[in-house]
């Protein structure tokens, strides 16, 4: 950790970023109550993850009615919202997640548009 040049700092950052499991996706799905829309979204996300991320993901479902404070902290306005926490950058997908193509674009698994 001593005598580091800028170059080595950047390199180290790159390395640690890759070490932190580039495949691992940390996803949080925010829903508002157990509405049909919410359940549909949860189902869709689970299905999507199983098909496209196969085990290298972490999904958390948060009901904002239970934890309303989280809406402010995570800047959620629309529900359902799927937030990709990792890998960076942060991504937000809104909707019932019925459009799989858009999810793929949204979490950078497929080049957009």
């Amino acid at each position, binding site marked *: 950790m001593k005598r580091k040049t800028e170059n080595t700092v950047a390199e180290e950052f790159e390395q640690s970023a890759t070490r932190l499991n580039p495949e691992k996706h940390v996803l949080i799905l925010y829903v*508002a109550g157990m509405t049909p*829309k919410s359940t549909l979204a949860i189902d869709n996300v689970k299905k999507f993850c199983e098909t496209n991320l196969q085990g290298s993901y972490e999904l958390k479902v948060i009901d904002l009615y239970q934890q309303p*404070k989280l809406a402010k902290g995570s800047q959620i*306005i*629309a529900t359902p919202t799927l937030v990709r926490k990792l890998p960076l950058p942060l991504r937000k997908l*809104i909707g019932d997640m019925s*459009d799989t193509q858009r*999810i793929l674009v949204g979490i950078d698994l497929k080049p957009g548009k």
Partner: protein
Amino acid sequence: MVMEKHDLVAVEKCPTGIRGLDQITNGGLPKDRPTLVCGGAGSGKTLFAMEFLMHGAIEYGEPGVFMTFEETPQDLAKNFYSLGFDLPEMMSRGLIETDHVSITRSEIEETGEYDLEGLFIRLGAAIDAIGAKRVVLDTIEALFSELPNATILRAELRRLFLWLKGRSVTAIVTGESGDKTLTRYGLEEYVADCVILLDSRITGQIATRRMRIVKYRGAAHGADEYPFLIDEDGISVLPITSLGLDYPVSKERISSGVHRLDAMLGGKGFFQGSTILLSGTAGTGKTSLSATFADSACRRGERCLYFAFEESPRQIIRNMESIGLDLDQWVKKGLLKFHSARPTLYGLEMHLVTFHKVIEAFRPQVFIVDPISNLIDAGTAPEVKSVLTRLIDYLKMKKISSFLTDLTHSGDSPEGTREEISSLIDTWLLLRDIEIKGERNRGLYILKSRGMYHSNQLQEFLITNQGLDLVNIYTGSGEALTGSARAAQEAQERASEMERRHEADRIRRDQERKRKAFEEKIAALRAEFDAESQELDLLAEEEKERQQFVTEEQSKMKELRKGKLAADWEKAPKRKLNGKKKGA
């Protein structure tokens, strides 16, 4: 219609605390309903909303939620601070809750149906956290540019406003003005209860902010455009309509500072609390008269506020020393306060607010504006009239005597003001140039003075190093003369008067001489007469002596003769004597 009438009674008002607005809206915004405040960039929407929240929290005990879609909490705190509100402190006291909604389109991907329940939850949480009664959404339209699906957004906004009503909070929703619509995204369609439009217009390089209540469901409201101001104390709305004509009046009289002028005004001067206008062309002594009035007010121990639109206070003080006025002493004693500003410094409404503010702070008994005609530069004549009407009403309400000067130009009719405020004036003095025989002098007369006897004479107005004075204008031999012509005429009159007096003296002396001569003559005649009388007396005396002598002689003779003969002789001369007496 019937429903609306019914609502008219039912609509409860939520005071905004914004100066003047509650007056126009008869109490404030519709309680527990959303109000749309729209306007262009920089029209004061956010400020409006901030004031609404802050006054609510501080003055009306109604905590509020500020949900911002544009500014970061740091910027917001700075904005509040600029109005003298400490946002972090109020947040820590649980009076205000803020929420910064930040979304970036690049971060967001739509993947199907969604709603804005997240926003509702956030707002609901904020409201519940402090028990808010007021909510501000600034500017919710930002969502339109960040969320791609406008159809969902519109439906959700409609739901949001209904939800707000259901939560019993009074809300302000701000919106950017559109080209043809009130707001760019047609928010006015959803917020149907009250719509306020803020507007900033530039006329002749001077910006005036205006406010209009486009809609106020179920309540009567002023339909005019109301000018408003944003200054360090926030927004002040000025109802353009006058306060009314039911102000108190005084019978007290105050001196103008010029003795002869007081004499012309029924001997007592102006009414206290009246409005005095002094019109005159350039260099007729308007400022001198104003300063003299100010000086006399301070001498009475009254406070005088002097608004100077042409000169700096130091310059006025210096110049007035030349006519023997020491205004500096009153400034030092705190009785006289100058306020100098260029008329074009800000718009008319701002001037009005400045008047109000300074008057409120200084509480003068006498208020001088020198000159009001310069305000024309800051607006058009009707605007100036409107501002002055409101100013004069305000001053009368406060029982402040106001002294306004008006610079007229030689081409103008002297009996008119460009601001057309003559009907508002109680006492109107006119100063004018009188040019005779290559000399320019000043004349003063009273054009009108309500409620008092006043002189109809044109007086010559003298500015001397001892102060101001008025003298009668020479009006003999069919012409009015002033200045040196008057002096010459007076000298000439004095000369001929003297001549006449000398002539009379001469005649009187002649007469006296004649009288003396006459009396001398009389004396001489009397002396002559007296001399003659004396002579006569002397003669009588001599005769008497002679008679006595004769008698004595005869008696001597009788004694000598002693006989009958002698007695007979005595009888004979007696007859002789009697005869002689008869002859005499």
